[in-house]
């Protein structure tokens, strides 16, 4: 089958890391917005149908140092992908599965807003940070629009940056296939990211949550300074809260049938985007996902609020944390230091109370 629903996804080589990750979460009982993966088989079929040859010709001679040439090559490659002939069977499959998704979501035919996200096969491996190299499209409505954006995702394999990245690291273009996820959009009241360690110091006893109002893209892209929470993973104490001034949010506009940027009035901008209960729910979720994978995680989530005020936490994706987890962790203790040595050192050091030079209390 060229298209697999998330719950059917298993093989990351076929469905991409993102979809395979979502599948694992589903199997672990986590709430994930429903959707399907357009497997690499579809993209491969496209390449085999002549696109591959055309692309090789265009990409063959480019060098990263020449940015102008790179841009030109990228433009040509992307055009080729977006205009390639799509097999009727593929078009029919996309239409059929999207209609099914609309039905499952209880929404009128061809009406369901979805996110169309790339899920490259090399993307989510722990040792390569390809993240962000390919595109994400939000609030796509209608099967035709879905198909168009699937093609744009495929074509994002050939942005100048992506081509350059692969060239610099010695990865060939041929090996990179792409799966695309089509997933029900969460109309997020709040959204953000969670790390199952403290990204500032790598401390694995903490969960760090960044959150803002509206869709999570504003947090992921770094355009908004989000609220920041640090939670102790063992005791569930919220040890730090930094509420920021969240000046705008991204929300879907039903009339415009797209995502719009809204400015937030100052009272709400300075209000916490998560309640304490939600912080703890996200912490429990993060712990469960980390335990499931046995590896520190970088999660994206969204909270949807129902009309009667209940909030549901959705996990949008989870991938291995890459900055601290790969590094060796230096021990805090010096080798060969006894408990008595520690006691003496601690006693002698004491607790600093005042800075004599600056005559101020520290």
């Amino acid at each position, binding site marked *: 089958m060229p298209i697999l629903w998330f719950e059917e996804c298993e093989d990351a080589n076929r469905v991409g890391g993102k979809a395979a990750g979502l599948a694992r979460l589903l199997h672990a009982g986590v709430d994930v917005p429903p959707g399907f993966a357009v497997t690499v088989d579809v993209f491969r079929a496209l390449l085999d149908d002549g696109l591959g040859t055309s692309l090789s010709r265009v990409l063959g001679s480019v060098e990263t140092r020449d940015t102008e040439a790179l841009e030109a090559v990228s433009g040509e490659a992307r055009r080729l992908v977006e205009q390639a002939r799509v097999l009727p069977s593929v078009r029919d499959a996309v239409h059929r599965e999207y209609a099914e998704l609309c039905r499952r979501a209880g929404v009128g035919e061809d009406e369901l807003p979805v996110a169309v996200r790339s899920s490259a096969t090399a993307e989510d491996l722990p040792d390569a940070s390809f993240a962000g190299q390919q595109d994400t499209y939000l609030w796509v409505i209608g099967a035709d629009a879905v198909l168009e954006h699937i093609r744009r995702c495929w074509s994002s394999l050939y942005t100048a940056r992506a081509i350059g990245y692969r060239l610099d690291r010695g990865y060939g273009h041929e090996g990179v296939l792409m799966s695309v996820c089509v997933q029900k959009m969460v109309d997020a009241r709040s959204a953000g990211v969670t790390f199952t360690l403290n990204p500032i110091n790598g401390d694995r006893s903490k969960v760090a949550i960044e959150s803002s109002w509206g869709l999570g893209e504003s947090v992921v892209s770094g355009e908004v300074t989000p609220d920041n929470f640090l939670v*102790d993973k063992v005791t569930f104490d919220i*040890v730090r809260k930094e509420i920021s001034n969240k000046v705008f949010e991204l929300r879907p506009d039903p009339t415009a049938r797209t995502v719009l940027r809204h400015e937030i009035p100052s009272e709400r901008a300075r209000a916490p985007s998560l309640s304490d209960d939600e912080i703890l729910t996200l912490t429990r979720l993060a712990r469960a996902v980390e335990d499931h994978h046995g590896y520190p995680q970088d999660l994206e989530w969204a909270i949807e609020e129902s009309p009667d005020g209940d909030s549901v936490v959705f996990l949008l994706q989870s991938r291995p944390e890459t900055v601290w987890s790969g590094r060796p962790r230096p021990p805090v*203790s010096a080798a060969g230091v006894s*408990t*008595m040595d520690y*006691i003496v050192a601690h006693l002698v050091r004491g607790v600093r109370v005042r800075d004599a030079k600056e005559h101020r*209390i520290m």
Partner: protein
Amino acid sequence: MTERFPSPFEVETPEGCEGWEDLYPYYYVFSEDRREFEESKFWFFDSMHHPEVLYPFDTITSESWWVALGEMNSRVFIVPPALGIDQRVINGRLYISANAIMDEEVVGARVAHFMERAGYYYEHWDELYAQWKDKVSDTVERLKALEVPSLPEMEDLQTVRSGRGLTSAYDLLVAYDRAIENMHEVWHLHFEFLNLGYAAYLTFFGFCKELFPDIPDQAIAQLVAGIDVLLYRPDEELRKLAKSAVELGVADSFRVGRSPDEILEELAKSAPGKEWCAELEAVKDPWFYFSTGSGFYHHHKTWIDDLTFPFEGIRGYVEKLVAGASIDRPLEAVQAERDRITAEYAALLEGDDLKNFEQQLALARTVFPFIEDHNFYVEHWHHAVFWNKMREFGQIFVDNGFFEEVDDMFFLHRFEVRAALYDLISSWGVGTPARGPAYWPPEVARRKVLLSKLAEWSPIPGLGEPPEVVTEPFTIMLWGITTDSIQNWLGVEGEESEHAVTGLAGSPGVVEGRARVILSADQLSEIQDGEILVCPITNPSWGPVFSRIAGAVTDIGGMMSHASIVCREYQVAAVVGTGFGTTRLETGQMLRVNGSEGWVDIID
């Protein structure tokens, strides 16, 4: 701008209190003789142990701990950077100051001695602690057994027939000396391990902070704290008595508003009632030797003197049982939770970090029972016996016209009491009137007025210049003297606080309720269910209160103070070490207390 507290020499004597210094020994007050030294140090008001004006006699407790604590640091275990904690009285209040060794070479030279001596105690801790328990029990039993003889008209004939050669007067003086010695003895025992215990705990605490930056202080305390702590036993016994009352069918006697005497009278009329009374008697020793205060003052009521408090606790538990609720402490759940968090933090470690964590945790757990339990043995059990034993001397004075009431004796310093005893026995021996009956009553009357005026003075939290670094373990651990507390006292607001009162997060949770400001244990009966207790410091014997309140706010105390420990145990949200809780909050105000973050707001 330099932030500073006033010099001790700038503190004014309140009107009408001139001459208060004469109530205390010459070495116990600030003076020109040591001015330069005294002004160079930082002194803070010890409201945790001595929140009230010091009665002259009662300074035996503070003076005893002054000596014993210092000795253990400076002469016995040779704590490298710390000597003792110095004391001075000002306007009748106790101020204390940690003495640090500033010379790095001297500190360095002390290290080897400390490692040898402290190392010995750490290595043999369990055995030494078991031996200690026997020693302190023996100290208390000897005190109890001490006979305070009265002075008879004629010495007993047996004195002659046995060729004794000594008299009741001699025995009376000796008994007094033995009682005073006994107090000094027990305070030495109090400190025998304490600084080592605190040092081990503080080290583990600091290590956890390095391993897990931002780990909540409460989590570390939870890793170490015991489950079956002696200070909770008296409250446990009350629960058992409540259950027994229900089982025996006498629960009805414990109705609201009845005095202990009324209840006991009723119980004495039935067989099951008598059985319950017998159970009560069996429990009293030692569990009712429990002060409702810190134990440092003669007038703090103990359960054994006044059954009102424990009976109120029993009544509350009976009420819950009759309503079908459980009154059991969830010991298994507490143990399971401790095991869980220990395992989960340990699972995040490896190699040397894991090894050191486990070793230091093991030591912290070894030392913690002494840290938690010594307080019951000394300040509660021993001191309850001591104050009543001293009242036996007071009675003899009353019988001989020196004082009008037994407790008048406590307005004399112990050196003065000994002199008064000498006055008494010399008059008994000589057969002429003692000077005491003319001398003491007006003097006691004067002192009563003086002390009640001193009691009106609001003690300044700190005097002198705060140090750069605090190294003395007790100062850090118990009093919670840190940057934050000192800043708080100075009223320095680094960041403007939007809250009414801020302090340390002592016990997690966010609660709302009406404030009840309590300044002494006598007021405890005013507390209503669900209220927020606001007080200078809580005391362990207030256990039954903790099962009724929604939250607690204290003026002083750190993470390991009783307020924090007991509130965590009873799952009552607490903000401790606020400095100003009792002055800024008023009874009846609606409060929101955040014990996870350490602040209090007035919401009505």
